[in-house]
């Protein structure tokens, strides 16, 4: 027997020596031939020398023949090896397929478990890859940075954009950038003969296209001259918009479109896929920029710059900081030393990608961690299945080994089988991941940036297959660990396949797997639980208004007709009249119980920031607090159900400029602690006449986000008092309508008709319910919560299967022991308890380890949590309880089986 094995073994080591052996064989063959010939000739009567000469002459150059033969034989050898390898693979594959076909349940469970585990990981990896890892869709995007100004003195986390004066100053004096461009997301009304349509516009500086590194698809791009205050109005069409709306007609260049009742000459078409960072622009317009305009502390421009080649972000940051420190001397009126000190006005240069991705990078890494844990749990389950399988096959393996089978050959056999399963699992994983990605695109969660670029890239495919292959090989080698470690295999054969020792070692390996599984599940469930609690907390936050039954939409009045170029309150009259008329007509619609307008809708638009001066306080520009300023029409508070004390300014108040304003409770408590705010006087724009007086106090509204503290807000009327203007006429506004309809969206067509009837050139956009806006405010938490909850559920189910498997197995193993116990009089209940206790022990060890892990791991969640601490005892004890119950439940069926053991039958079998 052993002889047969020794014969086979050298084959495996043939490769390194093959060359030498081939050469030796050729030499031997040729030598035999030459010797034979010589002997022949000697026999024929020649002397040895003559014979040798004769043979050599006839043979010619032996070395040439030898070389020829060596070449042929090397090729022969190589072909033969490939053939052998192929047939071995085919044989193993055939074996594997037949073997698995005999155990379809095993194969199905393994394939599905692996597919689920790897698929979830692949999907999240693809998401991470698309959103975070891939560069932004601009050439050399890594050199693009975003410039903004933190103002921690005004608001802790607020960052202001660039101001016009700051932009020109930076652009002229910076040494770190090739160039700086500014842009602003904007909207325009495209007026056609039938109606007006709101289009997403990108207003950009003339050098924007050069800075992002692209050129127009057709026509020309903008120049600095197009930004001039008196430049002829021009526009570029977005590529997709051009294809959709202009049928990709190249002749459109040079014609004009009507935007807000002004004609714009189309000078070109933007290249495909060019967008503002994470903003899908349909039309491109030049910003109006004036280098000679006096500096104003108004920060409305998104600054984007291209780093000079070789300049790092931190070097650019230093350069920008140097320029920022020069602002007070350059623009003492807008950026005086007092302002700089109070606001702690700074500058921050960061990679553009970080700005686009925002906090999503962290969330996605956390989710990748979560699904990786699910995958590990899935692997543990599959490993357990393979261990059981190996146990069942031990006799087969041992007999094969005893009969002289090659260990490496056996290894190849097992690995082929597991790799086959794993690769099918991998293919399923890719399919699942693809489905998940499609689903996510359809779902279109607003919290995920760059969703338009989302796809299942080849990288994700590679990751899936690599994971599958790695798992396949590891699983295939798993049952062999016992073989290689030189287990005493003769014992199996002697004992007729029932060995206690080996299975005990196996059992502890399997218990270790289950403990690991449990521990991982605890970590994941703790994370999911914390997110769920955060979600609940966030959803139970009272935003300060009643969102049910409220429809919202945006309108934009063409400035050319609604903002007359006159000074004083007269400028505001057309807009005021329009809004009053619109409110009356909308209120007349059936089912409508309230109509209001605002320039900044709570939770959607934030509340801005403007200095506020209180009468009889010695506040200066430097010390005056910056508070939210919201322009709201008379019906706003009632429509949104914001409680009010005192009086809300009426249309008449606004028209007559009585100076009545409403302030939020938080502002009142801050400004006039312990006093009645009604009747107090304040103004937005420095000290002096006239003063606004507080007519009412509103309940607090969480305008900036549900996880933010209530804002201090002054609600100003849309027409300012003479001599105290701060804002321009609100040509852009959001209308809110409260309706008795169960679905407020049903009112939308009627409302749209009202707007169009009133003025055909006013477009209606972003029609949505207030509830949608609230949902969106919790979108990030919802997204993380949903994904973590799914991961947690998968972990729970997989762990349950894992622990059930092990307990069932031990019960089967211990049948004879249980039988003996019962024969000796142990009551069935006690046997059942024993099994359950064992399960609980395994679960408890896993939970204990998992809790330690959870305490360490949930800290990374901190930034995603709201109103709950990462070590929330309620969540952690809940998870503990759930998993302990799981341990008990998983043991239920095996325990019942144990109590049904028939002692007589067991003892007879032994």
């Amino acid at each position, binding site marked *: 027997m052993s002889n047969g094995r020794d014969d086979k073994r050298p084959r495996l080591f043939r490769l390194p020596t093959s060359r030498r052996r081939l050469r030796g*064989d050729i030499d*031997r063959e040729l030598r*035999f*031939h030459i010797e034979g*010939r010589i002997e022949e000739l000697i026999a024929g009567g020649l002397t040895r020398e003559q014979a040798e000469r004769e043979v050599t002459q006839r043979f010619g150059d032996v070395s040439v*023949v030898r070389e*020829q033969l060596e070449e042929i034989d090397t090729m*022969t050898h190589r072909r033969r090896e490939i053939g052998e390898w192929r047939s071995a693979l085919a044989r193993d594959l055939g074996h594997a397929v037949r073997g698995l076909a005999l155990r379809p349940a095993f194969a199905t469970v393994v394939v599905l478990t692996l597919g689920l585990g790897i698929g979830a990981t692949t999907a999240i990896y693809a998401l991470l890859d698309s959103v975070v890892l891939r560069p932004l869709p601009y050439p050399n995007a890594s050199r693009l940075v975003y410039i903004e100004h933190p103002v921690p003195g005004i608001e802790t986390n607020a960052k202001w954009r660039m101001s016009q004066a700051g932009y020109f100053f930076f652009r002229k004096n910076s040494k770190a950038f090739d160039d700086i461009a500014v842009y602003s997301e904007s909207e325009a009304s495209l007026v056609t003969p039938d109606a007006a349509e709101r289009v997403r516009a990108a207003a950009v500086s003339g050098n924007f296209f050069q800075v992002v590194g692209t050129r127009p698809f057709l026509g020309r791009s903008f120049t600095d001259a197009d930004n001039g205050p008196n430049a002829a109005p021009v526009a570029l069409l977005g590529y997709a918009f051009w294809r959709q709306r202009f049928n990709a007609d190249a002749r459109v260049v040079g014609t004009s479109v009507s935007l807000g009742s002004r004609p714009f000459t189309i000078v070109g078409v933007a290249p495909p896929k060019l967008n503002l960072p994470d903003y899908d622009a349909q039309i491109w317009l030049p910003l109006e920029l004036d280098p000679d305009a006096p500096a104003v502390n108004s920060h409305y421009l998104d600054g984007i710059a291209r780093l000079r080649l070789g300049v790092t972000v931190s070097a650019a940051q230093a350069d920008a900081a140097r320029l920022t420190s020069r602002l007070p001397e350059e623009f003492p009126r807008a950026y005086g030393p007092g302002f700089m000190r109070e606001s702690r006005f700074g500058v921050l240069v960061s990679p553009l990608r970080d700005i686009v991705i925002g906090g999503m990078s962290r969330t996605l890494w956390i989710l990748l961690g979560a699904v990786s844990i699910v995958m590990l749990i899935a692997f543990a389950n599959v490993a357990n299945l393979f261990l059981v399988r190996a146990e069942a096959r031990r006799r087969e393996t041992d007999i094969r080994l005893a009969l002289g089978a090659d260990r490496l050959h056996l290894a190849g056999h097992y690995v082929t089988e597991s790799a086959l399963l794993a690769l099918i699992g991998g293919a399923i994983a890719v399919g699942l991941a693809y489905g998940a990605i499609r689903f996510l695109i359809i779902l279109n969660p607003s919290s995920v940036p760059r969703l338009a670029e989302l796809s299942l890239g080849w990288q994700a495919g590679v990751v899936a297959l690599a994971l599958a292959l790695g798992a396949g090989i590891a699983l295939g080698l798993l049952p062999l660990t016992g073989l290689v470690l030189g287990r005493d295999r003769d014992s199996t054969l002697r004992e007729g396949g029932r060995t206690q020792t080996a299975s005990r070692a196996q059992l502890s390996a399997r218990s270790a797997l289950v403990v690991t599984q449990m521990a991982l599940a605890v970590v994941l469930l703790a994370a999911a639980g914390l997110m769920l609690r955060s979600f609940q907390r966030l959803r139970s936050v009272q935003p300060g208004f009643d969102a049910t039954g409220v429809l919202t939409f945006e309108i934009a009045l063409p400035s050319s007709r609604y903002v007359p170029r006159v000074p004083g309150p007269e400028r505001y009259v057309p807009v005021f009249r329009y809004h009053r008329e619109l409110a009356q007509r909308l209120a007349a619609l059936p089912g409508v119980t309230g109509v209001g307008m605002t320039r900044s809708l709570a939770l959607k638009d934030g509340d801005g920031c403007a200095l506020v001066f209180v009468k009889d306080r010695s506040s200066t520009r430097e010390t005056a607090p910056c508070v939210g300023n919201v322009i709201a029409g008379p019906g706003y508070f009632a429509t949104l159900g914001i409680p009010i004390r005192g009086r809300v300014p009426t249309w008449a108040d606004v028209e007559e400029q009585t100076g009545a304003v409403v302030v939020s409770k938080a502002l009142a408590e801050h400004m006039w602690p312990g006093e009645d705010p009604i009747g107090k006087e304040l103004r937005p724009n420095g000290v002096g006449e006239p003063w606004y007086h507080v007519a009412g106090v509103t309940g607090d509204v969480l305008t900036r986000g549900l996880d933010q503290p209530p804002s201090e807000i002054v609600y100003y009327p849309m027409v300012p008092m003479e001599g105290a203007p701060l804002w321009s006429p609100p040509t852009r506004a959001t209308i809110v309508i409260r309706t008795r309809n169960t679905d407020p969206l049903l009112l939308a067509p009627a409302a749209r008709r009202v707007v169009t009837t009133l003025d055909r050139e006013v477009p209606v956009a972003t029609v949505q319910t207030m509830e949608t806006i609230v949902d969106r405010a919790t979108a990030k938490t919802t997204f993380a919560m949903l994904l973590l909850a799914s991961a947690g559920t998968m972990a729970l189910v997989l762990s349950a299967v894992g622990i059930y498997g092990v307990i069932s197995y031990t019960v089967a193993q211990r049948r004879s022991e249980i039988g003996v116990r019962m024969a000796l009089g142990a009551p069935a209940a006690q046997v059942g308890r024993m099994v359950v206790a064992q399960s609980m022990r395994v679960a408890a060890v896993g939970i204990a380890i998992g809790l330690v892990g959870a305490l360490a791991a949930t800290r990374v969640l901190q930034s995603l949590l709201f109103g709950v601490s990462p070590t929330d005892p309620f969540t952690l004890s809940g998870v503990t309880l759930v998993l302990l119950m799981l341990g008990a439940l998983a043991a239920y069926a095996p325990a019942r089986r144990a109590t049904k053991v028939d002692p007589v039958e067991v003892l007879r079998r032994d």
Partner: protein
Amino acid sequence: MPEDLDLLRGTLDLLILKTLSWGPMHGLAVLRWIEQVTGQRLQITEGALYPALHRMEQKGWLGADWGYTERNREAKFYKLTAAGRRQLTTELSKWSRYTEAVNLVITAQGAR
């Protein structure tokens, strides 16, 4: 010495296959057999024989094994495989068709 006949291209394979159809032989024996049968009229050089043998081994027509001669010398014996036997049949029929065709030409009456 009797006159040598040049070996037609491609016929060496046929000769070797036919020779080995009588049983396993080493290279020298193949050479001797052909020389003997043809009465030394057909001389095959070693430089042609051995590459041909090895190439046919590569193609799987011949199998090779080390063995011992009657005088107890170690030699590489070639034998026909099943594929080699099939190849021999094909080559034989090809050869006879070829010679028939050639014969038809050389025995035909002159053209007018």
